[in-house]
């Protein structure tokens, strides 16, 4: 057909044809709208708000309330709390709430990625253009992962760091805390990948939402799952007792990792989920 010589054709990117364009559009849905602000505010209130409230309701060591509480604890035979204990409480709360609450957010966001597009008929339209199916899934996944990383992990982490510094008076080691946030991100990425996989396998929202939610609460069963329980994503952030310490809290306190098995297990599962989503989406007919 007649063409405009001034226009430059896009480069052939093989299996990744169309990635950049869909990635830009998916990013726009996060950053070109108020979506990022909504996510940031929701989790700031629920995660950091709850953590801050807990920290502020605990008396500061040295204050009159703390003295009175210490006396009461001494009479009861308990040791008085220190700044470090308060920081530990804050971290435990942050990583517990920060991995459970935003996981719901990730599930709700991700279930729409494929099911909504399929129902609206926009997948068929986009795939009628020179776009590989691999690009379609990966570009949306990458944009969602970045949105989650910034609004649910990095900004929340920054707020939590400041709360520990200003309200508790404890400066956490920066690199250790950043590494801990990396584990929190990996934890949320597990739910993102799981939801994408389920969205590719099912045309109904029910299982795509319900199954990941079951995973959120199934941390209670880690004890009965044996070695499987020890390599799953819960161990990354949640403190599940002396035999299952939180890797993130250890890193945030500047301690070495007690084990890398949950990291390897979670990364492997994320890769498996993405591969299944790609395999299924590649076979789908529109």
């Amino acid at each position: 057909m007649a063409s405009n010589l001034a226009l430059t054709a896009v480069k052939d990117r093989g299996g990744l044809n169309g990635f950049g364009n869909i990635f830009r559009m998916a990013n726009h849905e996060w950053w070109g709208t108020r979506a990022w602000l909504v996510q940031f505010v929701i989790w700031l209130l629920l995660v950091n708000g709850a953590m801050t409230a807990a920290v502020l309701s605990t008396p500061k060591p040295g204050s009159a309330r703390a003295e009175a509480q210490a006396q009461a604890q001494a009479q009861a035979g308990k040791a008085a709390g220190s700044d470090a204990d308060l920081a530990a409480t804050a971290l435990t709360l942050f990583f517990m709430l920060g991995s459970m609450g935003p996981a719901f957010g990730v599930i709700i966001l991700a279930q729409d990625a494929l099911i909504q597009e399929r129902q609206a008929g926009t997948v068929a339209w986009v795939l009628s253009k020179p776009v590989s199916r691999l690009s379609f899934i990966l570009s949306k996944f990458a944009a969602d992962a970045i949105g989650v990383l910034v609004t649910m992990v990095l900004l929340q982490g920054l707020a939590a760091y400041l709360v520990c510094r200003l309200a508790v008076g404890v400066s956490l080691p920066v690199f250790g805390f950043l590494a801990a946030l990396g584990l929190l991100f990996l934890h949320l990425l597990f739910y993102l990948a799981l939801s994408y996989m389920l969205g590719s396998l099912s045309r109904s929202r029910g299982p795509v939402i319900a199954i990941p939610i079951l995973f959120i609460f199934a941390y209670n069963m880690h004890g009965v799952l044996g070695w499987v329980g020890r390599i799953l994503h819960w161990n990354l952030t949640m403190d599940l007792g002396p035999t299952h310490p939180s890797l993130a809290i250890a890193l945030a306190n500047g301690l070495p990792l007690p084990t890398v098995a949950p990291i390897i297990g979670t990364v492997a599962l994320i890769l498996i989920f993405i591969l299944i989503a790609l395999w299924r989406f590649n076979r789908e007919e529109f």
Partner: protein
Amino acid sequence: MCALDQFVIETHALNKTYKGVQALKDLNLTVKPNSIFGFLGPNGAGKTTTIKLLLGLSYPTGGSARVFGQDIRRDSVSIRKRVGYLAQDPRYYESMTARETLRFTAHFFFSGPKAAVEERIQETLQLVGLNDKADRPIKGFSGGERQRLGIAQAQINYPDLLILDEPAASLDPQGRRDVLEVMERLRKHTTIFYSTHILDDVQRVSDTVAILNHGELVAQAPIEQLLNGSGGIVYRLMLSGANEGVKQGLRSLPWVLSLTEQPVNRHVSWSIAVGDESAAEDQLLRLVLSDPAVKISEFGRQKVQLEEVFLNLVEGGKHGK
């Protein structure tokens, strides 16, 4: 397009089965470059299935197909770089405006420069008459406006092949006329493969037609051939005052195959089937007028309507082949 490509679309025994139901049976189709190819058939005949197979949105269960000489399974993305597609029920991201939709579409084909891309978008908006609505969200668009946007996004990449699935189905008569005009304008540069059930449109713009019924191809031919070939060459006369002698004289001629007569008000209508077109053009009218009492009010070659051919083929099932 590669100079060696004889056909833009070529299918060989293409089959598609959905959950045990055969939607397409051994489809053999060829579409020549720069043609407007009308793909006809009743609902459920397999038209949309064929289009989806050609675009890689669906996969064949048997047979093969090539577009621009490239395999539809192996080279699907490469094929789609040269294709524009309008779906039967076009869907877009509702929050986007028409301009944003075209920009999004254009960036699958062009990386820049920005000014040239924007110019192409503007040009396309103008072509389909959406200039004044370019910056409104699509969710407020009427069916006709969506269809216009569909045509715009389908041809933004200067496609070598435009695939349109029922392009005029949801349009009012004016919208239909506009779409047909756009198609005629584009035919200079591109091949248009379009499915429809609006037979008037097909007769007006198509040069080749294929008719599909129950997933089977029942006819494929240039439209003139299809219209002429269905009932032989028939001339129609509306006259009065003819005597029996003229009729007998005509019937005795070797190139007159049949003559049927039907009264119409105070006139008589003759349908004369002939086997030799040039002899008929040369002699038929002269022979009838050799009787001075005959008065002719109409004379001409009887035109078969596509609708007639279509119904004969579709209702006749396989016998219509």
